[in-house]
């Protein structure tokens, strides 16, 4: 993991540098192992985003970075996933004790996004201004992206608002999934030791409960179930600013420590016991949603975020959707919610006009 100081130093070093045909101009953001710059193709003038792996990163991070490039290329036909333009390994010249030393830098060149969803929801005042129709469209965009990825045989495994990128084209905003560093090719065998999959990786506040209880699996359905949970958690984030796990489980560190103790004893907890707790938290989230979409949202969350991973993969609870592909029913439900909200908005406008006329 790079420290804040290390990241700041690398931003200074890299800003203005060229990696291949791309000149790094402004740092747009930093992650655990990487930095994202806005850059320009010096040949074509095209604006792009360049994601750079901090050179001191550990071998696991390098593997993730390389894997991301492979999977992004595989997904380049999917309009729900960020476009991979280019990438590779270029050296920059660094001076150490008066001597020039070449420093190899791994990078991906990606389509440049206008922002990410977390920017819309981290400030509660801004979040409260965010129209609910827009929030459900964002959610729908993420579902579509994950659905495309799953159809292409890839699981994202790190879904959260900060990895949902917004692409503004004219008057429309489209969502594309980014940061596939933890993504997994569902058609290839596990690439890590089995023990590495039981706890998942990354920010624990977003982790599905099976990872906190050290019960994560290494099969395609395990990865897909984690993505379903991530989608539900994204909807919770759009409503509350917090991921579902944080809302439901409180001190995630304590949960994991207990799970580690249990593991050493050869024991494991029963995730089914969390079901009622999750239902109550979902009810709390419903309080913050418009009435017209509460029922649909409740059904979506209860299914996508069931504490038992196998339950998330169950068919649609709606009879008419029982024969559609997994996640297609979620897309349909999102469409219905959007329509309901549009009807609400129309009705509000009608009432407002009526009141205006009455007042005049």
């Amino acid at each position, binding site marked *: *993991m790079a420290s804040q100081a290390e990241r700041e130093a690398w931003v200074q070093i890299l800003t203005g540098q060229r990696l291949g045909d791309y000149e790094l101009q402004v740092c747009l953001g930093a992650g655990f192992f990487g930095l994202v710059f806005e850059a320009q193709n010096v040949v074509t003038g095209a604006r792009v985003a360049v994601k750079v792996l901090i050179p001191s990163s550990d071998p696991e991070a390098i593997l993730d970075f390389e894997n991301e490039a492979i999977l992004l290329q595989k997904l380049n036909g999917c309009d729900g996933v960020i476009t991979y333009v280019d990438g590779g390994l270029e050296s920059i010249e660094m001076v150490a004790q008066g001597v020039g030393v070449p420093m190899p830098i791994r990078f991906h060149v990606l389509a440049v996004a206008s922002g990410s969803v977390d920017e819309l929801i981290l400030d509660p005042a801004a979040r409260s201004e965010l129209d609910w129709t827009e929030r459900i469209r964002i959610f729908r965009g993420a579902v579509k992206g994950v659905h495309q990825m799953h159809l292409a045989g890839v699981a994202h495994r790190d879904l959260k608002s900060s990895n949902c990128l917004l692409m503004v084209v004219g008057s429309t905003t489209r969502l594309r999934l980014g940061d596939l560093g933890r993504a997994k090719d569902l058609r290839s065998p596990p690439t890590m030791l089995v023990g590495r999959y039981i706890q998942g*990786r990354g920010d*624990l*506040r977003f982790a599905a409960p099976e990872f906190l209880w050290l019960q994560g699996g290494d099969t395609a359905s395990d990865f897909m179930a984690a993505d379903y949970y991530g989608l539900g958690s994204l909807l919770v984030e759009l409503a509350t600013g917090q991921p579902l796990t*944080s809302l439901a489980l409180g001190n995630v560190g304590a949960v994991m420590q207990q799970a580690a103790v249990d593991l050493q004893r050869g024991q494991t907890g029963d995730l089914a016991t*969390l079901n009622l707790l999750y239902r109550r938290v979902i009810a709390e989230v419903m309080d*913050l949603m418009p009435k017209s979409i509460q029922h649909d949202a409740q059904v979506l969350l209860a299914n996508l975020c069931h504490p038992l991973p196998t339950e998330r993969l169950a068919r649609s609870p709606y009879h008419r959707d029982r024969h559609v592909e997994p996640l297609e029913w979620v897309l349909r439900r999102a469409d219905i919610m959007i329509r309901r909200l549009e009807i609400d908005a129309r009705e509000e406008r009608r009432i407002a006009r009526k009141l205006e006329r009455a007042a005049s």
Partner: protein
Amino acid sequence: MSSLGQLEVIRADKSFDSETAGPTLPGSAQGRSGSKARGSHPAKSGRGLDDQISDSLAETLDAAVRNVASVRSSTTLVALAAAYEALGEAQESIKTATEALDLSVTSARAQGVVVDPVAARLAIEILFRAGRIDEGVLFATSMPLVGQVRLSVGAMLASVGRLDEAHSFIDGSDAIGRDAVRGFLQITEGNNYAAISSLRSALRSAPDDADSALNLSIAFWRIGAKRKAISTALQATRSAPGRQDVGLHYLELLVAEADFDRFDREIALLGRLDVVPSARLYILQARATLARGDIDAGIRLLEQASAAAKAEDDHQVLAEVQSNLIRIRAWNGKIDRELAVSRLFSLHSQFPTSEVVIVSLAQVVNRRRHAAAMHNALESVRDTMVDARLAFVEHQIASLEGNNEVAAEKAVEWYTLEPEDLNASIAVIVALGIGQERWEEAAEFARSALLKYPNDPSQINNVAYVLAMVGKAEEAIELLTPHAKGQFVLTATLGLAYLAANQIHTGMKLYREAANMAEKEKDDSRSLMTAYQALVVHQLGLLDTSDPAALTAMSLPPVALPDDWRERSEFLRLHTLAASKGYEWPLTL
């Protein structure tokens, strides 16, 4: 059966902690720890699990810090507070949660509503978990919280015993789950009937709510509706088959009701579900086994419980198991009683706050010289010990000291708190009747005890004794006759009943038979029996109505008191009584 007037509680199932004691806050973390066996231990290979968890925690904190750097809001601050909490950095966590709440309060004052209610709830929870209850309450009352957030704050307050404040939050909430939380609050207050109503309502809307089913079962148990308590406990176990606390509660009730068939079936089911036995589960199995009289198997199970408690690093349970092992070995004659007392005092110095060690001690000590040490031991747990246990221990100490007045007072207190306890029932009859000569009061307890335990020999003996002394000698004779054959204690009491019925010859003959039986069994009760005989002759006024010389001739010949009579509660009780009445000591005819 023990000797006359002696409460022998060493075999009682009293020095185990009960699983039925505590209601569960809905949605709390209780019972979420592991209970099922894992097939393999994948994380034991490769890089250390602790390192991986540390990495994840570091990444969690890193992301939260970056978010706060970009937007400093209640949303990002509470996420940072949670990250600090997960890392165990309590002070930073409290400071950051407080800042998040300050922002929420400021915003709520400006806008009239809490814009970020979920962040407020999470921050208040963090303060509560850190023990900053007052600060959490202050923030909660400074904001117009509604719905689930209000309910959640009420639930947290109930869990820390701030019941009035909890009411003000819970009663004003209309959120889903309110009945469950209200039921928990009511049962915590001891308002069991109201709790039953609330919890039934909670279960109607969420039949799989294991917490509410568990709490309802506890409420039923407390009002004496035992069958309903057991069936509701069963419902709780089926709603949450992996919850150890729920399963243990159900098993505890089955043990208490001596329903060992269902107990065995449940244990078999747990085995099929791959539940790994915890120390507490082994203890319950041991209790069930001991209650069925299989002492050796019970001891083996307690030894397994001891090993499990060590593996779980649970000192309280370890103390409980160890103390019971000593007590049961002493009862079973596997170790000398004096050695058991010494080991238990040693265990007490190791685990000074363990109540069960004191309770075990109170069951095993049988000499006056132990009383002072018992007083000292009791002081270390007096403030936390439940009332019924405290009354039991104090009764035992007073009996050791020959303090009949305090022994009677504590026996009544113990019985009032645990009317279903056979030993409490015996204690109150012996202490009030024999110890204090408050025969009419003792007779009331005796009649009630007889209805509850019509076949228990100790109870029959004590009830008959008391009945004989209140002028119901015929009733006492009728009660004792079917049971007395071959039992020297019962035969002696039957002799007493005949004396009370003014059938002196028969009474004295039965006393002699009893003394002969006692001698054959090498029991040293002859001395005590002689003293009792002399006492009842005085109490019944037979010396005034019969020929004293004839009475003396028919009575048991005088026997010297045992050398250690000053150490034995059964003699001290009589000595105190004789002194108060001005009877000659040793009591003789």
